[in-house]
């Protein structure tokens, strides 16, 4: 069954993992990802973490980081992937559909109507100014979310090196994402293997 989990391998989060063995209702999944979509200006990942980890406690910090990494390695809009994977983890196939439905149906309909209206006023300076302020904040929230998810790994020199490398290559060079991802990930996994071999 989809709700089943193997042994908890991540360290320091065992107590949090106990919480999510409780059965989550499909309705709750739908509502949670509806909120993620409606709140998620600029970056849904900020809200997905806040709601699934901080508020509902369905996932531990490392479960969430795990899902985010997996989604980054698969094609598509990442937040949609977070919805699908969280739903699948908690309730299997129907859970994935409930989370996806919550994320898409209502927000898409409202967004399409609202957007068609907004397009008429796209040239107004006040709208552009507000947008500027919101996107500056949204950028800050995204940075903070990435940093917070990194906290469990901060004492691993290997992890710090590869995080900084990925950040630098993506933020300061014109290298395409695919090159960064497929260039760094095999090295990072190899380093993680060596690290494990050395520490036992």
């Amino acid at each position, binding site marked *: 069954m989809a709700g089943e989990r193997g042994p908890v391998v991540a360290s320091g989060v065992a107590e949090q993992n106990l919480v999510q063995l409780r059965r989550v209702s499909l309705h709750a999944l739908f509502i949670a990802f509806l909120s993620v979509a409606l709140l998620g200006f600029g970056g849904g990942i*900020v809200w997905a973490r806040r709601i699934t980890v901080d508020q509902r406690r369905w996932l531990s910090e490392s479960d969430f980081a795990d899902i985010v990494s997996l989604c980054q390695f698969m094609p598509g809009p990442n*937040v949609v992937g977070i919805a699908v994977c969280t739903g699948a983890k908690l309730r299997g196939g129907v859970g994935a559909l409930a989370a996806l439905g919550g994320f898409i149906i209502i927000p898409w309909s409202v967004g399409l109507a609202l957007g068609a209206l907004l397009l008429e006023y796209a040239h107004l300076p006040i709208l552009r100014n507000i947008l500027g302020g919101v996107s500056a904040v949204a950028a800050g929230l995204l940075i903070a979310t990435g940093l917070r998810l990194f906290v469990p790994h901060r004492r691993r020199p290997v992890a710090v090196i590869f995080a900084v490398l990925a950040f630098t290559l*993506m933020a300061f060079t014109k290298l395409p994402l695919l090159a*960064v991802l497929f260039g760094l990930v095999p090295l990072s996994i190899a380093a993680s293997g060596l690290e494990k071999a050395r520490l036992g």
Partner: protein
Amino acid sequence: MSDHSALISLSAHLALVSSISFGGFPTVLPDVRNFVVAIHGWATDEDFANFFAMVQTIPGPSMILMMSFIGLKVAGFPGAVASAFATFGPPCSIYYVGYRLWDRFRAAPWQEIVRRGLVPVTLGLVVASGTVMARAADGGWQAAALTVIAAVLMLRTRVNPLWILLAGGAFGGFGLL
């Protein structure tokens, strides 16, 4: 080209690029622009930029919405629906299958190694996309300060991020950026 064949050709193209949009849909935006604006002339560059700016201001699945606005422009409401499905359908199936596979091998020793290698790289990329967004907005030192303050508030306090976003919008709205 008739609406009908334009709709099919747009959907097919979106389904294809969404299946290879590693790291998120924004990575394939240049390709979509090329297809819609340069090759088919279904929309202008200005339309494209407006769609992009607009989906940042409205909550919701922004890239799915953006593709829907292109679909709307090309073939009306059916175009919007078809574009939405083409954008999220193929990746969702991949996500689901990928997750089930990943979950099945959860207890395998190699998975812990892969995870510990994967996570730092992807989190570096998340922080980088925040930085890239901040730079794309290009709002001078005030906007950069706002970005830093937002990040610190988010890390150090439990304040609801919605308030930080609202404050940022108000800041911009009063012309302080």
